């Protein structure tokens, strides 16, 4: 039977839509062609159809942090290769490639920043670094983000974009879920706000640990968010998935997130939220 194939959701969009060299960009949503500067100036959001294209962590930092300023924490952490893992290419080589591609040492940046003048503890996954996967360094930095926020009584804003736990560090990656959630629980016990932003995509071990444990969960417009990847589910149930499955709006409909937000409105929304949440307590 030769039914025309429906386009599968692209889970590894970073590979396909990375803003390569060139003057023009093709919108992944409406296929309009536009000058690259126009798309970049609008933070990767298509002016015609509002399709959200992936943007690098540096752009998120510009978008979220006042004056684009981040006082980075634990910037010196580097991954190791505890399993001596190789899939044909050694893990250590994959890390080097990812560092070259992203210009960053690992798949997350954390630090102190200000959001509309309010000091916050800020973390941002780097999807361009091995799909934002969580190994020991990412788990450690998220844990330190929560611990530092607890010590300094800072609300946490964490931007997630991750395929999940990093296979190449095996079971140690899985343990990062427990480590980071335990730290988050200590933060929660002190009633310090945690705003969880689920960007495109947020799946696997990152989704199944802290991502849904925000006091407020904000999903980025159009983001793919879920526990299992769409292909895994299709292979399990042997059915095509319905349109819009695991997209941000689907999660909103099912009560898993508080709101779906355009990237362009996210900072202002979080500013408002923190005003409310911090007005009744000492935090922030």
């Amino acid at each position, binding site marked *: 039977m030769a039914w025309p194939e429906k386009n599968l959701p692209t889970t590894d969009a970073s590979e396909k839509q990375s803003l390569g060299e060139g003057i023009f960009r093709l919108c992944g949503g409406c296929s309009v062609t536009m000058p690259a500067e126009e798309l970049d100036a609008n933070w990767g959001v298509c002016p015609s159809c509002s399709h959200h294209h992936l943007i690098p962590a540096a752009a998120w930092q510009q978008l979220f942090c006042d004056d684009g300023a981040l006082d980075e924490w634990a910037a010196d952490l580097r*991954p190791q290769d505890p399993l001596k893992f*190789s899939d044909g290419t050694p893990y250590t080589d994959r890390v080097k490639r990812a560092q070259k591609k992203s210009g960053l040492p690992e798949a997350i940046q954390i630090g102190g920043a200000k959001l509309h003048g309010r000091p916050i503890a800020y973390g941002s996954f780097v999807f361009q670094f091995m799909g934002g996967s969580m190994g020991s360094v990412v788990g450690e930095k998220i844990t330190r983000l929560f611990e530092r926020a607890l010590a300094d009584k800072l609300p946490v804003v964490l931007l997630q974009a991750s395929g999940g736990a990093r*296979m190449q560090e095996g079971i140690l990656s899985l343990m990062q879920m*427990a480590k980071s*959630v335990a*730290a988050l629980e200590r933060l929660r*016990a002190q009633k310090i706000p945690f705003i969880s932003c689920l960007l495109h995509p947020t799946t696997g071990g990152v989704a199944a*640990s802290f991502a849904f444990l925000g006091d407020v969960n904000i999903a980025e417009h159009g983001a793919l968010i879920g526990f299992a990847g769409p292909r895994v589910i299709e292979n399990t149930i042997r059915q095509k998935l319905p349109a819009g499955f695991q997209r941000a709006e689907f999660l909103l409909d099912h009560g898993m997130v508080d709101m779906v937000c355009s990237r362009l409105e996210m900072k202002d929304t979080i500013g408002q939220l923190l005003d409310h949440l911090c007005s009744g307590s000492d935090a922030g």
Partner: protein
Amino acid sequence: MPVVLPFEKPIVELLDRVRDLRELAQTDSSVQAELELLEQQTAEVARELLSQLTPIQKVQLSRHAARPYTMDYVNRLCTDWVELKGDRRFAEDEAIVSGVAKYHGQSVVIVGHQKGRGTKENLLRNFGMPHPEGYRKASRMFELADKFRLPVLTFIDTPGAYPGIGAEERGQSEAIGSSIAAMARAKVPIIATIIGEGGSGGALALGVANRVFVLEFGCYSVISPEGCAAILWKDGSLAPEAATQLKITAPDLLRLGIVDSVIPEPPGGAHQDADLAAAQLDEVLSQSLAELSLLDGDALADQRYNRFRALGTFES
């Protein structure tokens, strides 16, 4: 019909002879010496053979259809078992069993994945793959244990949390994350044992404990070898290589600091002698529980925090 994996055959044949001889020895005491010798030889052959298994063969053993499951241990280790069901939100999930029981005279909360024996029970238990309701039931149990100051014993044995449409609609991710959080918070002793398959986040959701043990032929992995091979090489049949790369066998887990110790299994594996497997587990569990019972609630939560805080490797 007992399932016998190809590499088990020599062991199973010897064990059958031991059983026959043991029966004979009940009426004919002259075979006693022969029996003891055969038992000793069988144990040696079994240990020798199983020590040479490849990682994927150990994975197969961890999934063995005859392996004791959570309730096989609960029935042997506990008395006064009262099963508690339901997540209070949507449904009962039979892929996780939970309840209260007496263990060495002390009331404890039990939470474990439960696979089924045979097709009918496996469908009921979804092959030990929980939906969000299973994890929400587990969270409820951890909170109940915390509230009534009861120690918790968990038993891990799952291919993973179920990846399906309903599971996603009802928040599989949130359910797992919340179960991890509830375990992290609890101010009571928690002991987790991987008795078979420890499949990823669906296993970890019952695994945030003060002590984590693995049975000799249990495995614990961030992703199944099949899933890993499918992602890395687009070929699930390369699972044996993935199993080797992922370092998921009991000795690997001990070396990486994931488990506190490896609990030996009877000759040929736990499924050859569930009573002995339970007895050997009992020894470790009872001793650990006695140790942990000396700590107060805050110290228990801190110990658990620090245990997981230390996991991970990086340069700084």
